């Protein structure tokens, strides 16, 4: 080729640049190595655009993806767009038009394809069917020779790169598939492994268990033999034919057979009395046939027979031995001769007790205080007229207690809960038919095995006795009253009669005397005689009075030191039962260090008793409230000692207080006034005084106050109080 110098230098530069570009193109695979096809194309197109100063470059590829249909990828790279420049899409469309004829051969160069403005298009077959690269430049000298060379090299490079990329992708896909397959297989192997491990472990466990079970079975056998041999109960096992397979020492002892004598023999022939053998055989046969048994799993009592033929009662429990194969059974037998005897003795004893309770109208109960668990005897149910066996509660008992005795009942329950000591009380029941029953209860406290408080009590229905007593008491008190009134009346009449006789004589004689003296002539002799008789009758009257005094006069009262507290306590002890009968609650408040008094102990006690009775009698009209009686001793002013008896029960009607005062000031037939007037005279004899006063609250207080014993006195001035003084009595 002919070369001009200036031209030659331009040519050299051009060639140098071409070589540089060629080198760059050849270096491209290093850049896209490992990339996917699109990355290869991007890199190539960018390089061509820059290298050949193209206006547009694009690539169209059909990429086979596995066996899937061909996919067309278009990649377009442009330099700065110009107004006259066709779009990449238009170019591709144009190319498609020219390839429409079906020719798969790309033309090497297309010129002025778009008409306006020159565009050079260089289609680059990339391995023919794979695709095409189109380079577009508006330059007229495009493509120069060197540029065509570069383009074809580029096309080759693209082809190699794409093939490599395609290969790589294929490899990657295969590798990924392989990996996945490996993972899957690994997982399968791991699962299989796991299963194997599990299987091994299970096999180990089973072996271990089998070993353990075997050991346990051995131990259990030893244990069972020991139990069977040492059992107190007879243990007999039989097979499905009813033949004895085991006969323990207790059975040997009880029945009198040796084990080896009976093994293999029919059970029925050994221990069952002849009379029952047939029944036993039938039952056994029925069980074998139907599987239904009347005796299995139950405790039954029957008669058994010993080797010597003697019969005795046994308790029997039969259990089927839970083994496969023909059924076999274990029988547990216990000689219950002693228990039977004890049961009979107990029944007899219970019958005796019930009869005794019935005859004596006495019931019994136990009461566990902590749980309020109450057990009654049958007789108690009868007494309370409740259905035998209904659960007993305090509430139920309370429903029967007479309303007037409820307060007392509650108090007893309360005290019993905390007390823990034996107690005794009397109360009444109000039955549904409004009849009243009198009860007398005696309770003994015990502690059960847990140390809990429990009362065992006997309750007697004393209604009949009580009614008889009441009738007797009434009769007695009426008699006393009659006797007192009668004796008083008799006394009065007798005094009057005894005195009226001589008085009558005196009056008549005096009258006669006067008449004789007034006569004319006066009958002086007659008058003297009548006057003499008057004197004699006067003396007779005087004698009558002396005789009455001897007959009815009190003996001289004794004067001894008296402890009023002691005297009071004696009276309380004597009158407690009577107070209880009136359902009065007595509260003694006796002062400590009470000075002694001088007097007649018995007389003073009569006064105290009288005051208590008055209070208690007066209270008898009150039925709906508790009755509190307060008896109190205390030092009084002026070296005196005071004793008072008060009704402090709530709700003492004012009328009742009025009645008491009335009774105190009058002497009515009731005898109360008489008792009080006697009391007053006794107290006055003791230089004291007796009075009654209404309480601040309800009720009345009777008090007496008497001087202390002189020894107790300290000054001379107070000794004057011993001098009898006129008492106003109230």
């Amino acid at each position, binding site marked *: 080729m002919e070369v001009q110098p200036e031209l030659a230098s331009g040519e050299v530069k051009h060639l140098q640049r071409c070589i540089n570009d060629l080198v760059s193109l050849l270096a491209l695979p290093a850049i896209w190595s490992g990339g996917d096809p699109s990355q290869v194309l991007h890199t190539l197109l960018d390089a061509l655009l820059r290298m050949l100063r193209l206006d547009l470059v694009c690539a169209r590829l059909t990429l086979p993806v596995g066996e899937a249909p061909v996919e067309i990828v278009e990649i377009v790279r442009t330099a700065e767009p110009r107004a006259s420049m066709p779009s990449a899409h238009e170019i591709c469309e144009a190319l498609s038009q020219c390839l429409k004829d079906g020719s798969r051969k790309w033309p090497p160069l297309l010129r002025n394809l778009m008409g306006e403005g020159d565009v050079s298009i260089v289609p680059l077959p990339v391995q023919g069917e794979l695709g095409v690269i189109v380079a577009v430049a508006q330059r007229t000298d495009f493509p120069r020779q060197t540029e065509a060379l570069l383009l074809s090299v580029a096309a080759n490079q693209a082809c190699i790169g794409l093939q490599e990329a395609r290969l790589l992708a294929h490899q990657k896909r295969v590798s990924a598939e392989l990996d996945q397959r490996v993972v899957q297989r690994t997982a399968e192997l791991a699962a299989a492994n796991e299963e194997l491990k599990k299987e091994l472990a299970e096999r180990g466990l089973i072996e271990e268990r089998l070993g353990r079970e075997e050991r346990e079975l051995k131990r259990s056998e030893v244990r069972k033999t020991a139990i069977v041999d040492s059992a107190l109960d007879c243990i007999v096992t039989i097979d499905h034919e009813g033949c004895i397979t085991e006969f323990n020492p207790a059975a040997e002892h009880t029945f009198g057979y040796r084990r080896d004598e009976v093994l293999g023999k029919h059970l029925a022939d050994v221990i069952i009395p002849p009379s029952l053998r047939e029944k036993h055989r039938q039952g056994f046969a029925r069980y074998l046939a139907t599987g239904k048994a009347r005796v299995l799993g139950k405790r039954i009592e029957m008669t058994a027979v010993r080797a010597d033929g003697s019969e005795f009662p046994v308790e029997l429990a039969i259990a089927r031995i839970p083994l496969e194969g023909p059924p076999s059974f274990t029988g547990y037998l216990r000689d219950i001769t002693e228990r039977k005897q004890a049961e009979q003795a107990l029944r007899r004893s219970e019958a005796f007790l019930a009869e005794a309770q019935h005859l004596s109208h006495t019931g019994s109960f136990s009461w566990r205080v902590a749980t309020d668990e109450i057990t009654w005897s049958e007789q108690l149910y009868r007494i309370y007229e409740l259905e035998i066996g209904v659960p007993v509660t305090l509430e139920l008992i309370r429903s029967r207690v007479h309303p007037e005795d409820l307060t007392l009942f509650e108090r007893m329950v309360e005290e019993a809960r905390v007390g823990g000591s034996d107690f005794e009380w009397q109360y009444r029941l109000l039955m549904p038919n409004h009849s009243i029953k009198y009860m007398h209860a005696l309770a003994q406290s015990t502690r059960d095995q847990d140390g809990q408080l429990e009362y065992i009590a006997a309750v007697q229905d004393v209604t009949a006795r009580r009614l008889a007593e009441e009738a007797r008491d009434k009769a007695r008190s009426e008699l006393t009253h009659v006797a007192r009134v009668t004796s008083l009346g008799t006394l009065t009449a007798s005094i009057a009669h005894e005195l009226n006789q001589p008085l009558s004589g005196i009056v008549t*004689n005096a009258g006669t005397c006067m008449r004789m003296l007034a006569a004319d002539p006066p009958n002086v002799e007659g008058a003297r005689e009548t006057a003499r008789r008057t004197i004699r009758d006067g003396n007779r009257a005087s004698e009558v009075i002396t005789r009455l005094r001897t007959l009815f006069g009190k003996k001289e009262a004794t004067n001894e030191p008296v402890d009023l507290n002691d005297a009071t306590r004696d009276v309380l002890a004597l009158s407690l039962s009577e107070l209880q009968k009136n359902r009065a609650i007595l509260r003694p408040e006796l002062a400590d260090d009470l000075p002694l008094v001088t007097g007649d102990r018995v007389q003073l006690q009569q006064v105290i008793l009288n005051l208590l009775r008055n209070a208690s009698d007066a209270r008898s009209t009150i039925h709906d409230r508790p009755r509190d009686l307060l008896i109190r001793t205390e030092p009084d002013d002026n070296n005196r000692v005071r004793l008072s008896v008060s009704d402090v029960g709530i709700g003492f009607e004012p009328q009742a207080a009025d009645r008491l005062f009335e009774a105190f000031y009058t002497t009515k037939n009731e005898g109360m006034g008489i008792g009080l007037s006697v009391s007053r005279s006794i107290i006055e004899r003791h230089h004291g005084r007796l009075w009654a006063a209404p309480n601040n609250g309800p009720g009345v207080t009777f008090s007496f106050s008497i001087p202390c014993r002189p020894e107790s006195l300290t000054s001379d001035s107070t000794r004057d109080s011993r001098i009898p003084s006129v008492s106003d009595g109230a």
Partner: protein
Amino acid sequence: MDALPREAHCYAMELRREKRAMERPLVSVVDDDESVRESLPDLLGEFGFAARAFSSAEEFLASDCVDQTRCLILDVAMPGMSGPELQRELKLRRREIPVVFITGQREEIVRLQVLKQGAIACLFKPFSDTAMLDAVNSALHPK
């Protein structure tokens, strides 16, 4: 008269009583109490009646005075037959004599009872001489 010995005086009194009895109505006194038996006849004598005293109802019934007695002064309560019983007995014998009861027991019930049975009066001892005179007079002269 003072000079007369006691026995003689008594004898004289007895004679006078008997003599009067002939002409005066006889009043009999039956009482177990001696002072009444001693004093009352003297008083009755002073009133001008003939008087006899008996210590019991039985003694009176046994005496010969039953028919002559015009008025009977009778103690209510006596050992043995009582006053009212004697009154009933006389009624049974159809010999009804007016009765004046006297009693040492001041029992209104007794008084009413005997009055109901037909007594003339019932005087409580000690009674006044005039009350006795009134009672005897009304017995002897029924209106």
